[in-house]
């Protein structure tokens, strides 16, 4: 079990890092939504999936409907999909989610869980379960030989892009005035409202932003995973664990735990692969019992 070469180990760690980037991006959206809005957005995985499908639809189906000039390539999708899905998130928040703020966390969770079922069921009904194919954009096809492994260019792009996005978001929320405003608004909304800040608008936009992050991750995932209705649900289990471990409200926590767990999962796949899904839950349980606020979070 332990006779792995250094080369093999390095390759697996890199793969783990790549996965960790996805976990980090997805968990960040969840962490923002929970940390600032106290909502547990179970629909995060489904929103991720919808964005992936939109990217594919723009690429494969729109030109069939409107003509080849209307094909939406990867880079455009990267901007359009988060806007569309983010807008849908805003719609959800304004109509249904808003009504549950005064209640226990549970209800928000159940509502978003219901939304995820509806979205997954609908896409399954129309698109089947096998999913559809979507290749990386031409600029990023092919790969580079790193010696210990052959790294597909697109995956390298994912690492770089997600780290940039994660750091930018963290900076926005922790270091800018806007971020300070958002954080103050959730701690003491009445006071801020007295100062003329439109709290409900802020909340809505924050939710939209969090969902937009999930959508961004979704578009970035399309060249790697088969676009299928269950792609989000499979990831969501792990992402939830990541967010809990990192600290339910902490953005930096989500980023660091996402990356760390990706690497840990990679190592487990190397040494005891059957356990690679359950190891995350064991860690989650341990963290919850010893430091429920997570590694970086504050007790709520």
């Amino acid at each position, binding site marked *: 079990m332990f006779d792995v*070469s250094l*080369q*093999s180990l390095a*390759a*697996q760690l890199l*793969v*783990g890092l*790549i*996965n960790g980037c996805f976990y980090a991006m997805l968990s960040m959206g969840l962490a923002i939504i929970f940390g600032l809005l106290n909502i547990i957005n179970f629909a995060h995985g489904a929103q991720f999936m919808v964005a992936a499908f939109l990217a594919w639809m723009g690429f494969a189906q729109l030109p069939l409907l409107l003509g080849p000039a209307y094909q939406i390539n990867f880079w455009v999708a990267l901007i359009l999909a988060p806007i569309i899905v983010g807008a849908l998130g805003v719609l959800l928040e304004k109509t249904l989610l808003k009504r549950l703020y005064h209640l226990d966390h549970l209800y928000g969770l159940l509502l978003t869980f219901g939304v995820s079922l509806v979205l997954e*069921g609908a896409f*399954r*009904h129309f698109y*089947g*379960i*096998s*999913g*559809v*194919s979507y290749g990386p954009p031409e600029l990023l096809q092919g*790969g580079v030989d790193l010696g210990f*492994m*052959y790294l*597909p260019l*697109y*995956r390298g792009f994912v690492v770089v892009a997600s780290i940039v996005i994660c750091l930018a978001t963290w900076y926005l929320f922790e270091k800018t005035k806007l971020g300070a405003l958002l954080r103050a608004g959730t701690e003491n909304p009445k006071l801020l409202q007295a100062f003329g800040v439109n709290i409900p608008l802020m909340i809505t936009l924050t939710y939209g932003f969090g969902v937009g992050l999930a959508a961004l991750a979704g578009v970035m995932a399309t060249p*790697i*995973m*088969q676009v*299928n209705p*269950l*792609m989000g649900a*499979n*990831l969501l289990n792990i992402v939830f664990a990541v967010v809990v471990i990192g600290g339910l409200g902490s953005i930096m926590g989500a980023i660091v735990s996402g990356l760390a767990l990706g690497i840990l999962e*990679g190592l487990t*796949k*190397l040494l005891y*692969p*059957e356990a*690679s*899904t359950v190891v995350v839950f064991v860690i989650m349980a341990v963290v919850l019992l010893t430091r429920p606020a997570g590694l970086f979070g504050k007790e709520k």
Partner: protein
Amino acid sequence: MKLKGFALGLAACASLPSLAQVSDDVVKIGVLNDLSGIYSDLSGQGSVTAARLAIEEMGGKVLGKPVELVFADHQNKPDVAANLARGWFDQGKVDMVTDFPTTSTALAVMEIAKQKNRVVMPSSGLATSILGEKCTPLTAQWTTNTYALAAGTARALVKEGKKSWYFITADYTFGHSLEKDASEVVKAEQGTVVGASRHPFPGSDFSSFLLKAQASKADVIALANAGNDTVNAIKQANEYGISRKQVVAPLLTYISDVHSIGLDKAQGMYLSEAFYWDYDEKSRAWARKFFERQKRMPTAAQAGVYSATLNYLKAVEAAGTDEAKAVMAQLRKMTINDAVIRNGKLREDGALVHDMLLLQVKAPAESKAPWDYYKVKAVLKGADVYPPINPACQIASK
């Protein structure tokens, strides 16, 4: 006077030999499969259509009684399947149940069918466990099984000189079964198994396992999984440039999977199937009828449902009854030759031994039309690729 005549008439009626005993005056076929989940593309509504085509081919009647069709979604859960089947048998007058992607559902229903004396004909339920310890005399595993699929591909590849194998296996009974069956064949042909990795089922990212397989430098990376797992693994193998130096061999693929992967990524792969729509004129003619309704070409599983239903009805006709044991006896006497199954004989353990196809995926340039995906490399005789009767199967060891 009138009473005497009446009594005589009654006596006469009673003494007439019962010509055709059809239970409940109807022959009902049940298609039990996954209509919405991971196996809905390879079976799903397509199987229902296939069964319908078979019923229509028989004129909708058998022994003067109507033939009816029911279907339901077992969601790949054995308890849902068991419940539905029980209801169908107790109240629904169903005589034969078919399809069953996900072997555990087949096993669950086989158990109940044994108690209630009904016929079970799995088409997409492929694990060899159906022919082993849990075999029943009323089961006919119609389309193929994991051993036959693996044997064809494995033998062909080892003969080409690809002797060292690495398995990437889905960590559940079905995956293990595929790996075990294929390993047996590889070793029997003097090949070697250099390693194996088990991935959680269902998986989504196979990078780690593919890299391990690459590091092993095996000639063949065999995928002991199915559906989305196979599709994703092949896509990712392409990404990492693995497919250029090592042969990626999926052990269970349907044409619907190749459709999802795309010829550019799947080209050159060897695989076995029980049926290919473009094999000959007979299969093409039937496939076209299927295409008219489903707008997709039939998978082997769906074609199997057609053949199973058709031959079941023919057996009922020949046996003069829909009583399960009599129909099974009749099926065992028949040699099956239709648009789907060639040279088929039903064995005592329930395996329908018939010709299999060794196929290679075409390059995009070689494909002239949608669904024109395969080159037929060889026709494999059933006796060569089917497993021997498992001694654990009680009914066959008499």
